[in-house]
């Protein structure tokens, strides 16, 4: 349980709900940090925009990006 409870996906606004449902299809559940971001819809949209921008920039091998993200997250004590 996170320190602050996330939103109920069923009560999120339509576009946010669509993103959370897509995560549930892919991972089996919405990403928990996104449920918290969704408490502030403008922040949720900004966060998703950043991820989308990085995903579509496309200069780096996605495998290298995954390893870099894994390393940084681990150094910060975050295991996703």
């Amino acid at each position, binding site marked *: *349980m*996170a*320190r*602050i409870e996330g939103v109920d996906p069923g009560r999120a606004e339509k576009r946010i709900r669509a993103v959370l449902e897509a995560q549930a299809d892919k*991972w089996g*559940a919405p*990403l*928990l*940090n996104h449920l*918290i971001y969704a408490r502030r819809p403008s922040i949720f949209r900004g*966060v998703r925009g*950043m*991820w989308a921008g*990085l995903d579509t*920039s496309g*200069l*780096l091998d*996605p*495998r*290298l*990006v*995954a*390893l*870099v*993200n*894994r*390393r*940084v*997250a*681990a*150094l*910060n*004590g*975050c*295991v*996703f």
Partner: protein
Amino acid sequence: MGSELGIPNEKILALEEYATSPLYDDQERVALEYADAITLSDRDVDEGLFERVRGGFDEDAVVELTTVIAWENSSSKFNRAMGVPSQGLWKRGWIKTRRRNGVGDEARTGTGMRKATVAEATERLPGPGGERSAKVLGHGSMEVKIYAPRGTDPQTPHTRDELYVVVSGSGEFANGPERHSFGPGDVLFVPAGVEHRFEDFADNLVVWVVFYGPEGGEVDS
């Protein structure tokens, strides 16, 4: 996540040892060293490192790489502060593979073993790629390795708390801002994320290494 992209499990498991593991190429090593320097508060990106990053990536790719690292810092620090628990996204594919691998995998990783001897462990060194460390046994979050660097100790900070038990050899140990002389039987503790290395050590240095606890280490209570 990694498995879905086709990253071998062995490579993911060797991420802490990217600087010395033969599973990583030069471009990956410099990108990960760059990530370490940006992320760790006691490190910085000096001109030498930045030039090596430029040598591995064109300028547009450096912008993308830097943003990836900075953004992952933002995301992971948010998760840490909020206490967002792991959803096991990396481990899912890994566990499936381990189950498929069966008994042979168990022997390789030391899962289920309750005793290890120095003689048996040092027989595993050097590894097939010249590695100077090898996993010996593990249980839950605990992982025991044997480590016997020769000449220099090229290791980078680890993501979990770590204990060294010196089997043989003596020398100096740089441990964040501290420096210790050590000898056989000594125990050295290194919190997660702290830069450390053996220096001026004898060529018979052998240590047990114990990693334990969560990624990012535990808070001293």
